[in-house]
């Protein structure tokens, strides 16, 4: 289902002054681009930053960013424009974005539209001309918080601050219900390639004999689905909240738990069916899916100070000792000490030693906190899809 956001007429911004106001009172002034969102229709969300230097279009279209306003640390955004291929869903989910410079004239052989028009069409506002590094340092030192952003005539920054305060916290918010699909569907597309673009897909005949994976959609990135097909699965996507019996009725050979937005602690209706299926079918979770599996296995989640969002986080596979450079996007994490003893912490973040992966041999389930589908970001962790395939096929790990 699409978010029921008022699809009101989008007005294109033309450099109007706008403000990005944090709940703690800090205000940043910039120029609006993309769509203009005024005082009556401000952008609201949690202020977060992402340190990836490439891949802004994938980030904007990642449903996990629902409810968040993105501050890109890389100063130039929009250089390569936007295209039809580099999307992780059917629309922009990021509530708004804050950048140092937004480029109007893209240069890339695959670009079809400028970032400005792309945003304007989706009624998403951006602010540019802001010292984004200052925002990052502020969030780093003071922690994640809610923010409000608006531009044009009659915007009072102090009023935005007050509004931001009223937004409370990301904790306790369920965004999955806004972004998950409402209907069951099948997925048949393969990953992007330079020569084949994004539209390569497999026929029913090619898919029919493959092991079947049911993906529980909490806001899944399409590259995950693409890689599940690529590694050899037939994929059916079901909405978050689908019961275990409904899922088992689809006779899955494996169940996949997707990424998604919001506070994982609010997702009892997803955790419960997963708990019921533990041990019955091999499972693999990514990001929010990892937090769901963690809870299903008895663990607890907590909110990180400012989260991990970027494409350069070192994670060590505790089985092999090898380090992979991972893509991350999470504000919550699974508490290390909350997990029962039979759950193996398979991956650790070397920056802060937080849990990045877990595994239950007896339940034949594993998950990672980071994004092995890496879109955007380095491809180091794509082996995990193979690992899942091996697990489903009953092969030795």
């Amino acid at each position, binding site marked *: 289902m699409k978010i029921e956001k008022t699809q009101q007429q989008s007005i294109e911004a033309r450099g109007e002054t706008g403000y990005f106001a944090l709940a703690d009172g800090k205000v940043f002034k910039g120029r609006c681009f993309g769509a203009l969102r005024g005082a009556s229709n401000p952008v609201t969300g949690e202020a977060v*930053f992402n*340190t*990836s*230097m*490439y*891949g802004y*279009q*994938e980030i904007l279209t990642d449903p996990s960013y629902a409810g968040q306003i993105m501050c890109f*640390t*890389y*100063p*130039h955004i929009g*250089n*390569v424009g936007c*295209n039809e*291929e*580099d999307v992780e869903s059917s629309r922009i989910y990021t509530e708004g974005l804050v950048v*140092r*410079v937004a*480029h109007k*004239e*893209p*240069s*890339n*052989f*695959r670009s079809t539209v400028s970032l400005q028009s792309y945003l304007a069409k989706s009624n998403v506002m951006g602010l540019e001309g802001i*010292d*984004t*590094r*200052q925002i*990052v*340092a502020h969030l*780093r030192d003071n922690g994640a918080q809610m923010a409000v952003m608006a531009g044009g005539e009659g915007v009072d920054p102090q009023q935005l601050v007050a509004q931001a305060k009223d937004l409370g916290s990301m904790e306790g918010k369920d965004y999955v219900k806004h972004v998950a699909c409402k209907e069951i569907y099948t997925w048949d597309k393969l990953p*992007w390639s*330079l020569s084949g673009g994004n539209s390569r897909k497999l026929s029913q005949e090619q898919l029919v004999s493959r092991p079947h994976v049911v993906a529980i959609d909490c806001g899944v990135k399409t590259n995950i689905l693409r890689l599940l097909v690529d590694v050899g699965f037939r994929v059916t996507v079901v909405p978050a909240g689908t019961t275990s019996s409904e899922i088992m009725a689809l006779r899955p050979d494996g169940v996949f738990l997707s990424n998604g937005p919001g506070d994982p602690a609010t997702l009892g209706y997803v955790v419960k069916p997963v708990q019921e299926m533990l041990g019955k079918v091999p499972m693999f979770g990514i990001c929010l899916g990892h937090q769901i599996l963690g809870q299903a296995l008895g663990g607890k989640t907590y909110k990180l100070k400012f989260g991990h969002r*970027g*494409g*350069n*986080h*070192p994670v*060590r596979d505790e089985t092999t*000792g*090898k*380090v992979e*450079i991972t893509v991350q996007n999470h504000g919550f994490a699974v508490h290390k000490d909350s997990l029962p003893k039979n759950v193996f912490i398979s991956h650790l973040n*070397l*920056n802060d030693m937080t849990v990045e992966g877990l595994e239950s041999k007896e339940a034949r389930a594993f998950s990672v906190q980071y994004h092995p589908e*890496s*879109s*955007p*970001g*380095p*491809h180091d962790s794509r082996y995990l899809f193979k690992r899942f395939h091996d697990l489903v096929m009953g092969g030795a790990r």
Partner: protein
Amino acid sequence: MPKRTDIKSILLIGSGPIVIGQACEFDYSGTQAIKALKQEGYKVILVNSNPATIMTDPEFADRTYIEPITADFVEEIIRIERPDAVLPTMGGQTALNTALELEERGVFEKYGCQLIGANVESIKTAEDRDLFRKAMDEIGLESARSMLATSMPDAEEAAKVLGYPLVLRPSRTLGGTGGGIVYAADELHRKVAIALSASPNHEVLIEESLLGWKEIELEVMRDLKDNVVIVCGIENFDPMGVHTGDSITVAPIQTLTDKEYQLLRDAAIKVMRRIGVDTGGSNVQFALNPKDGRIIVIEMNPRVSRSSALASKATGFPIAKIAAKLAVGYTLDEISNDITKETPACFEPSIDYVVVKIPRFNFEKFPAADHSLGTQMKSVGEVLSFGRTFQEALQKAMCSMEMDTYGFDRDKLTKDLGKQELLEATKKAAPQRLWLVGEALRAGFSVRDLYHATAIDPWFLGQIDELIQTEESLKGRSIESLDSESLREIKSLGFSDRRLAQLLDVKEAAVRDYRKKLNVRSSFKSVDTCAAEFVAHTPYLYSTYDAGSDAPPTDRKKIIILGAGPNRIGQGIEFDYCCVHAAMALKEDGFETIMVNCNPETVSTDYDTSDRLYFEPLTVESVMSIVEREKPVGVIVQFGGQTPLRISAELAALGVPVIGTSVESIDVAEDRERFSALIQKLGLKQPKYATARSADEALLAARKVGFPLMIRPSFVLGGRAMRVIYTEDEVRSYMHEGVEVSHDRPVLLDRFLDSAIEVDVDAVSDGEQVLIAGVMEHIEPAGIHSGDSSCCLPPQTLSQKVVEELKRQAKILAKELDVVGLMNIQFAVTQAEEIFILEVNPRASRTVPFVSKATGIPWAKVASRVMAGKKLREIGVHEVEPVGYVSVKASVFPFSKFPGVDTVLGPEMKSTGEVMGIHANFGGAFAKSQFASSTKLPSEGKVFLSIRDGDKASLPAIVKRLSGLGFGVVATKGSADFLSQHGITVEVVNKVRDGSPHIVDMLGTGAVSLVINTPEGWQPVMDSKSIRIVANELRIPTYTTIAAGRAVVEALGMVKDGSYLSVRALQDYLSPAVVEPQKKAATP
């Protein structure tokens, strides 16, 4: 994995002298590596012939061999030191090639040592073009279609198959030496011949042209556990066709989506694994078709490279240091990130700024060379600049160039060009292209027009176009019409005060004052590897005009050291050496040291050299904003060569506390009239001189001074546009073509002291006491630029009386000039032992590192302490006179990069670097200096002599000695006749103008193994030019002065009997048993 304990000692091979394609980035990497390995408890043995490096300071390695980096010498070092391992990846191509040769000779096996950091197999696969291509095929990566040629028929066949244009890439050469682009069949033979002869294994890869494609580089690190990280992606502003060392480059990559970038990242990792670089840093270069994204692997360097130095500085990730640790067994996750302290080195830096590198060229020194850019590197240095945006970084980089450019201000360059000609001019890749592109946009061409002309990505062109449009919108406006917001906006695009002053038609000071009035000041941000995600503990900073600042100043006592900017001929690593020493000494003395520099190759711009690093242009504007922020107790301008000196007066006038010798004293030394008065007052002598402000005045002045004379413009760096002149005709032609002359910039004429011996004296003064650091006798006579001559320490032919007198004069000059710090004096001593003062420089000179190595006293450190207020007595330093060994410094020239250029030496400096030879006697030291500078002295064959009349007296002795050593002698008729008068018969050969078969034909046959050719006057120089050009191309050692000829003959003796091939560590030369402090030397 923990570090290896099976190895205890490691030999690190350096890169030798600074040459084009291999500059001080290898001092940076080697120094980092030595520090890292010593920290881990290994015994480090170093070989490097370059005395101006920090790594050859005796306190860095445990055993420091300043010896030639050739297989012979390195084998000798291995024989003596028996290292457990050899690390060849820190010393550029020189070290790799030497390691390969040692392996082929079986040296490693013989002495039981192993290569670490790279293995022979992987070096070979990466270096050998054909093996590399096959390897790429195996892993499914595309290479440019190509064919290997070892002969001319091969090349013809390749041309037929691949079609023109073709790219020539000789195997195993530095900076693409000998390579080039063949556009049409008529160039094929000539260019292939050059390429084949440049390749040590006589092999050239002929390749389809990828002209106009994007060029992208990735810096990769890998450890023994196969963890791989990409440190930095670099995009070339100039498209394929220009050597990456000569290209403007930008980090990170600006015009690729993540999907395309990840394809490159995956490819780079595959390359790394296939080539088999087990540990360390490598660089992989790609070409990418901008129309469809097709990717081609161009090459990979299985070692630390210039790009790694750039990537390290650009990101704060110290590639060389980490590569060294990986080489001894650590893995990336075991090494911590110095900057954040709490996170590991196993990550990929994320940067929140843009860096731009612009290469610096010196074509004005080589007017005859081909100035266009291609696959062979021709730049001599580079600047790097940081900004929050590309526009800011680009304009800051332009200001850093020290070429009197402060942005897109080169309208002069194009004022005579028509609009179409301007567009035409941008098509040729050349040093000034960036500025031409700006002017073409100003002239009304569109981004699209320029993309078609240049193939530079439209994104970059669009960014420049915005800058030009901003400039145009400012023209005619008054400065007061800018409010603080718009001024801040403009400044944040990187416009310098100087450029704004031009555009607004006011003085620079007016812009500065107005800016301050509106409180529009720069902020400073950290280079922290992580885009502020973690707190940075290392104050490595750049300026910008964004709101927030990082790393607030401390309240410690601070001294700012102004660096030397980009390397260029006349100003190289020697000055960086001095700056680094200042930082080390003053840190020890408790000051907070702050370095300001913009040269990414250097040790000075390593974040742990000083307490704080500002990576900034050395302009008044930048320095003032740092001074205003930091409020130092002192600023050192003496150590960075001309760079800080040229702004020192302005800085002093703005109230900057310049310490050491006063700006006033520096002016006295530079001002001819004032200096002359001082010389007279002290009863000393200087050659006759005159000043002329027009061509007519110059003739009159020449008559007054007398011939021969030396003529030069008033403001010079490294003797640019200087010339020795023998006739009035030559004065006329010099004034016409040679220089720009004006009332403010007169030309200077000095009597040239023919055949006089030149002597360099370095001294340190604390204002009360003066110590002589060293007296260096030049081998080439006065008239050859001191930066180009060889010299020896101690002097070999000067009498003790003369040496004492030189010291006396140096001391009284130091006192009279109130020198506090270093001083260098150049003397000329005539055959009658008359002493003339040629020049006094009250600052660090090029010779300081050489003198420091030869005497074992770190004179730059001593001088820094003195400048910060200490007395020499407190420091407890004495003059020393090396006993039992001779040190020779020789210069290294870039002639092999510039075919067709005359190699004759003169008052114009042409060398890029220097080497040091140390031996028990002069002949051995000179021989070593020659091998170290890649001049292979022969042990047999014929020596060709063509000697000017003034030098003929020396001929008989030289010839007798040569015959005694078994060399044949060939001479031109004049020299042969002179010899026969002395009863010596030699083979006679025609001069070129006498017709074939002449000497150039003979050189071509390979019969001649050495040339001594001393021409005099313009005509003979022109006549004999073809000899030197051909000898240069064929790499036949050539000496153009009789003194050097005498020296080389002495050296040939040592080569013949093999006694030059003995090595000794610097620590042994400098042990107290060898160096006795002279008691009488400490003059009160």
